[in-house]
């Protein structure tokens, strides 16, 4: 390389300097993110957290955007702290969280589809909130399935953020046209089948029902309640084995397969990857289908729609208590301020004036009936379901049930678009993935 003197030495010093600068910079960031977590669980600050004008960052997924936006807007308007909300496309959310966790770039607050929460708690992405949550005066009334999903090794890491329940939406106008009683939604899968076919017979671009046939998450959300309604469970307690070839499950698959065979389903179900599945019902051409409760507030004003619980093959009712739970990231340096938002978001005022006013499900069972739900009986139907519904728990949930190339979607498609004869074998594949 020659002597170190002269211009070359100069260049070398420059390069060395630049490298040293880079190294220092990364060291500083590393140190910054190293003093993590410790602030998360501390119970020293006031139970309501700190509101001192801190700028907080928060992420949520597109599926629950309207709910998160409403809460953040109301909070920013009434507090010194300011939250900057970033909405990430639903399909990319897990990848985004994973990448950010790897580079320690998680925001102060992040919501997560409640089924992925066990993944994050077990990997230490959330700060421990046990003391803070237990100190809330309404702690025992928080949606139990969300708290359960966020409890890991007896520590609580999340609180419910938005509750999203699967319920039947039915089009009363089409029901009247099909000579069905618009006040008598189906109470069994068999009735549902009959009513969907009756509406479908109207013709003229009207279809009986619709579902996301290429979307594992949709299947989990809308099919499993029918199985639960029959008193069966789809997973074991630890979430390591599947029971998706049970007799109730098969009755559900058979019904859906019949709809596909007889063209009762609106076009596009076979390809529906979950991006547009909630956009079909509001067009007013579908009789009765399961929908997320969070879309109730977004339906066209002139659409005369009724809401009913998802029934089992021979009766019963259940729902998938989905939606987002939210926690403070373990690397946040503003845990007290972030908790201020969380505690506020769960108090009576925010729950009633923001969440319930938006026709959404409240996160607390003691507020199930409030001034808004009293004005809309459909909300009562939904709120009451929280107690009957379930949130499945599995560590390998995403890669088993949400992965578009995963084993559950294969089971779904074989069972409904195929002949349904491979359900046992496919159930084994699901179990293998859960136990992986």
């Amino acid at each position: 390389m020659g002597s170190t003197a002269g211009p070359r030495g100069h260049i070398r010093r420059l390069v060395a300097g630049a490298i040293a600068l880079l190294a220092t910079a990364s060291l500083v960031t590393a140190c910054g993110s190293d003093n993590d977590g410790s602030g998360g669980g501390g119970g020293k600050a006031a139970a309501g957290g700190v509101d001192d004008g801190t700028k907080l960052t928060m992420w949520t997924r597109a599926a629950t955007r309207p709910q998160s936006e409403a809460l953040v807007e109301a909070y920013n308007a009434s507090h010194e702290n300011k939250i900057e909300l970033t909405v990430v496309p639903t399909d990319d959310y897990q990848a985004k969280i994973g990448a950010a966790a790897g580079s320690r770039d998680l925001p102060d607050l992040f919501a997560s589809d409640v089924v992925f929460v066990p993944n994050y708690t077990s990997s230490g992405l959330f700060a421990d909130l046990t003391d803070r949550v237990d100190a809330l005066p309404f702690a025992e009334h928080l949606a139990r399935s969300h708290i359960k999903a966020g409890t890991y090794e007896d520590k609580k890491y999340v609180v419910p953020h938005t509750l999203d329940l699967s319920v039947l939406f039915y089009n009363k106008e089409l029901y009247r046209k099909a000579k069905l009683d618009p006040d008598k939604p189906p109470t069994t899968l068999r009735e549902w089948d009959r009513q969907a076919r009756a509406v479908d017979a109207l013709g003229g671009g009207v279809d009986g029902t619709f579902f996301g046939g290429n979307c594992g998450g949709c299947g989990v959300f809308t099919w499993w309640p029918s199985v639960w309604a029959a008193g069966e469970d789809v997973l074991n307690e630890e979430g390591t084995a599947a029971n998706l070839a049970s007799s109730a499950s098969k009755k559900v698959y058979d019904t859906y397969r019949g709809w596909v065979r007889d063209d009762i389903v609106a076009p596009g179900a076979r390809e529906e990857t979950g991006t547009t599945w909630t956009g079909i019902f509001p067009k007013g051409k579908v009789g009765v289908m399961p929908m997320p409760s969070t879309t109730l507030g977004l339906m066209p004003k002139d659409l005369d729609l009724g809401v009913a619980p998802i029934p089992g093959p021979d009766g019963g009712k259940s729902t998938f208590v989905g939606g987002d739970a939210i926690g403070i990231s373990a690397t946040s340096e503003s845990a007290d301020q972030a908790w201020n938002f969380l505690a506020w978001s769960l108090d009576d005022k925010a729950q009633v004036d923001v969440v319930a006013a938006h026709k959404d499900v409240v996160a607390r069972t003691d507020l199930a009936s409030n001034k808004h739900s009293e004005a809309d009986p459909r909300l009562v139907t939904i709120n009451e379901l929280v107690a009957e519904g379930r949130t499945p728990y599995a560590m390998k949930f995403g890669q088993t049930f949400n992965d578009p190339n995963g084993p559950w979607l294969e089971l779904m498609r074989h069972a409904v678009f195929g002949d349904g004869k491979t359900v046992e074998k496919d159930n084994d594949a699901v179990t293998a993935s859960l136990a992986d």
Partner: protein
Amino acid sequence: MPVKVADRATAEHATQPERRAGTPPPRWRSRKAKGLAYAAPTAVFVTVFFLLPLLLVGQMSLSDWPLLAGDRGVNAPENYTDITDSSLFWPAIRFTLLYTVIVTVVLLALALLLALLVQESRPGAGFFRTVYFLPGALGLASASLLFWGLYSPTTGPLSRILEGLGLVDDPVSFLGSPTSALWSTVFLIVWKFAGFYMLILLVGLQRIPHEVYEAARMDGASRAQIFRSITLPLLRPSLALCLLLCVTGSLLAFDQFFILTKGGPDNSTVTVVQLIYREAFQRLNLGTAAALSILVLAALLLLNTLQFRGLRRADES
């Protein structure tokens, strides 16, 4: 080259024996320094954004490295031996190769046809060149989203237009079956890239001297003969470049399938790069994802070397 520069510099140095101490250093040294200074940003860039990440991927591929938990230490060669456990591995390789062959053949044939059509400077040729090239100005992800919207059976207009024209009776399911999903994607890629490859071939075509064509015509060569014996051989360097770009690009296909099909229906359109993405972000396992990436990198290196060698041999003959 540097020898020459140095020689000249030394010569200049020799003509200035009376240079006093403290004057600027000889010109050849400052020239070298300048060269280094010009190269340094790129060198730093390549090191920071290519070499270091590559080393990191290598290390990841040898380690137990869950996305959420971080490095858990070496577990080699487990990540590599695990790759073939996935039931999607061999189908993904098969599909990626099939897709590459189809796209390369269709794309290059069409690009050549377009280039021949707009080769000569007649009125309107510029307009068509622009029209053919325009889709290439779009990002692949945007183009894929656009086609996803067009193909969508629930919101897209394409099926309804075809029905309105009376070309089909029932709604067309563009992405609903393995075959239709593959060809719908090929159509998007051809639409998007034909203009780009046309441009490369057009440059090649215009480098062929007119005299050669004239001489051939004087000798009474037919159009087909001219195309086969003059255009094609003289176009070989451009065709080779297109082939290389197209094959490499197709083997690394990801965006279009990720957006249009997500590997479906029924896992029929899973490409190798999608498998990498799935390992990393669905199964949250960076180790196996890195091992797959290294494998793909090795395969591409091998393929490119073979292609280069083949083309060089063809050139020499």
